[in-house]
């Protein structure tokens, strides 16, 4: 009796040994799905969760792919992907907290090269990317703009700009960088650095309202800088720079958190979560409430447009910790369709055939 009970105990323990030793070996085998015609949404994820992802919506299949980067490469985008742009035959994903730039094939999201942005063991934390004459210009939180040759994908130069630069844009043969100083709260920066790409030096520094973040240019010689202010006593403000004389020709309060120029319009998201349109020729707001059919977006996060079709893409971050959406409107502000994306959909890139 006693022996039987002991042996049962030992068999049970042995079974547990076996149970405990089998565990699944997770190896994601990459599967490449070629895509054309559609749009990419870069989802930031949450800082420290390594859950930045790349969604793709195909206009042909009308189906979303939840993380095309992961399926194509067998590894994740990393932590807090902040910007995505297509230039030439490559697509560039700027991953802020992982401090990398993923250069991929725009039709498959398959990795061509991963550029690590480090100074020794200190992460530079890249934010935004812009392109001019075969070079990519990347702002980083270490107060620099890195110049990357898009053919060799090597960093050729580093230019020192202001504090915590965010976005940058190209206009009239020059690079304009918005220096937010944002992480140094409450000691914001309030400058725009103007870079001459031929000498790779800052030729001029302009003063705007504190905490400039979004910077974008139109085809009429204007560079728009949206400053966030201090979220309290100093409200958000829009500065317009003449890209010939490099002078701030106007600075006025402007209710927006996101501002971007596509074609002859600028699209913006107000601080209260509304969507508006600004005409860059007449220099006036043409639609203070773009959405015409009452579609409610919980937390509009990023906005872009298709210059040809006039369609407007607005992402919704919902409660910042769950899956978001992208709403696609026609040029009259009527909702065409919506699709589910990842957490904190921060940037959209349109893939043209």
């Amino acid at each position, binding site marked *: 009796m006693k022996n039987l009970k*002991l042996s049962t105990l030992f068999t049970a323990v042995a079974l547990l040994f076996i149970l*405990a030793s089998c565990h699944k070996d997770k190896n994601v085998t990459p599967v490449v799905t070629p895509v054309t015609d559609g749009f990419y949404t870069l989802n930031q994820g949450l800082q420290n969760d390594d859950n930045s992802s790349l969604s793709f919506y195909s206009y042909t299949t009308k189906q979303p792919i939840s993380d095309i980067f992961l399926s194509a490469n067998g590894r994740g985008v990393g932590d807090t992907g902040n910007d995505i742009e297509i230039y030439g035959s490559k697509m560039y994903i700027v991953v802020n907290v992982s401090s990398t730039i993923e250069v991929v094939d725009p039709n498959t999201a398959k990795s061509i090269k991963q550029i690590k942005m480090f100074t020794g063991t200190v992460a530079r934390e890249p934010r935004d990317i812009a392109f001019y004459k075969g070079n990519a210009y990347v702002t980083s*939180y*270490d107060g620099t703009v890195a110049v990357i040759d898009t053919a060799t994908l090597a960093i050729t130069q580093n230019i020192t700009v202001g504090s*915590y630069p965010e976005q940058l844009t190209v206009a009239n043969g020059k690079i304009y960088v918005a220096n937010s100083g944002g992480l140094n709260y409450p000691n914001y920066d309030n400058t725009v650095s103007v870079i001459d790409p031929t000498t790779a030096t800052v030729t001029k520094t302009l003063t705007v309202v504190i905490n400039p973040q979004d910077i974008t240019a139109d085809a009429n010689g204007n560079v728009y800088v949206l400053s966030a202010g201090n979220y309290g006593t100093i409200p958000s403000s829009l500065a317009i720079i003449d890209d010939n004389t490099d002078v701030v020709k106007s600075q006025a309060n402007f209710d927006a958190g996101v501002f971007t120029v596509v074609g002859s319009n600028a699209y913006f998201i107000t601080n209260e979560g509304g969507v508006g349109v600004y005409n860059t020729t007449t220099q006036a707001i043409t639609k203070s409430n773009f959405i015409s059919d009452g579609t409610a977006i919980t937390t509009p996060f990023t906005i872009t447009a298709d210059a040809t079709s006039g369609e407007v893409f607005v992402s919704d971050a919902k409660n910042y910790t769950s899956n978001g959406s992208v709403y696609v409107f026609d040029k009259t502000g009527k909702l065409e369709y919506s699709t589910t994306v990842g957490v904190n959909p921060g940037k959209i890139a349109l893939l043209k055939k």
Partner: protein
Amino acid sequence: MATIVQHLIKRFWCKPKCLLLLLLLPLHLFAQKKDTTKNLKEVNVSTSSIPKVQTVTPSQSISSNDFDRYNALTVADAIRDFAGVNIKDYGGIGGFKTVSVRGFGANHTAILYDGIEINDAENGQIDLSKLNLNGVQQVTLYNAQPDDILAAARSFASASVIAIKTIQPNLTANKPYQILAGMNAGSFGLINPYLQWEQRISNTWSFAINSYLENANGHYKFKNTNDGSDTLQTRTNTDVSDQQVDGALYWAKNDSNKFNLHINYYNSDRGLPGAVIDYNPYSDERLWNKNIFLQSGYEHTWNNGLKLLLNTKLSQENIRYLDNDAPGDLIIDDRYNQREFYQSAALAYHLTSNWEASYATDVSFSSLGANAYEYAYPTRFTLLNVLVSKLTLQKWLFEGNLLDTYVTEQVKAGKPTAAKSVLSPTLMATFQPFKSPDILLRAFYKDIFREPTLDEQYYFALNGVSRNVKPEFAKQYDLGFTYRKALNDFLDYITFTADGYYNTITNKIVAIPNQNPVISSIINLGNVRMEGTDAALKTQTQTFDGWRGVLSINYTYQYAIDVTNPGDSYYRDQIPYTPKNIFALNTGVDYNHIGLYYNQLLSSSRYFLSNSDHANYIDGYGVSDLSLIYKFQIDKLPAVISGHINNLFDESYEVVRSFPMPGRSFILSFQITI
């Protein structure tokens, strides 16, 4: 003959060698007296060490003689296997560990140290890895509240309570001191010597000093499955250096009149490895902690049965967080200091032989300072009053209490939160359905809340914003039974408890990022519904020819879903970090002075964010540990040497996203009692 012996004693009383001679004299010399004393043959009286499971609310306990069997060095290790417990472990020796009981967040569990709460008004979460078991007699987890109705009001003010009881000296005039010296060493470069000194001063006074030093480099290898790497990486910046000294003074005139005083100092300096960021393995964050507290308790029982319990606590905590690797010119050097004064008075009285009532009142002042921009420097005043009633009616036992909580705050800058008062009732009952007292049915209903932390109310609440975060309410309904049987054949005893529960959380406190990336808005948004079962089985065999077997099995089932808004994409999805099934087993055999024990913990998968989808999935895992314990003697002094292997099968897993857990590790322990 007796006179000769007395003469010898007088001449040689101070000479040990001759004392030995005295002892060698035949015993019957001393026994030759004219009165009727007889030397009785020694009889060993022992009962089965059946654990106490028939508490009014579910409880699970682990005592110091079992710490070794579970390889428990901290409170987190001690309660890891308990049913209903889910430890959120950030990995490694210095890794932060918080406890979630029955799906409630860490803020809903109160930790009592000898009856007085270890409070953190700043962020409400106690890091259990900092609570070392050195000097601890017992750790008990109670759902709802502890059994004793003579207790500080704070014991009634949380959804669950973990009660830590320290070792009280049990010394005699013949042996007025005891020294315990030991060392733990092993993987992670761990060196951990400790010393306990208990000393009897007189019939009524004694003291105990517990101290330890811990140093470890904390390094371990891990596998990152997200970044496509094949090789193992190493966790760095994980060093830990901490020390603690606890001095306790005890006075006991008799069992109905006692007093204790503790002074405790804790100091730590550690590296924070941070989350494993894909493609960015560097971290240079550091954390310093300096805590000191003074607490005292006085208990008095009068002849008429009236009992009084007084508790006082004064504490101060200093924290410094430094990030050298912050981008740009930013240097993050955050410093906080927290002070608390706490006083509690409780009275209990038997109104009739079967009706006992108690009343307790607690007063506390917490103040918090931080070097944050435009910090509020809040002071919080909390007043708790609780009335408890316990009635026994034949087979029934009813217990109820009504707790009133009053909280008000003051600030140096900005706006204070409005004062509020909340009434929280609790009802409990037990029923003995059969003649035998072995089976007991129990049920309870508890309506309690957790106060928003000072960080939630004030941290970066700028521009005159008064967050006015409301309390997060937790309602619990429980129904269960306990079965215990002392046996006499193969098994020594068997105990089994099973409880089913239904809990709700309303006004869940959530942090939402603001436009300003540095600050966040804290709001009450969220409803959670939890259903689950906790089952625990404990059994032990009799000792046969020196052989004995032990077995303990715990099972947790938790179905906890978000029911805030049907429009949410995660509506009715399992809430983050809550695995549906957890199974824990501890079994072993001992033969005379050697024991071999095996521990197995199995956890099902969980999600780290609200949506239950592939992107947020964290794999389930199983962790096995093995312990070998050998008790022996060195010059008649009891000693123990033990070896432990943690994560025997080198399982690669993580409990918290981006915080991988260590693989196989070893600890060797040695302890001697003088």
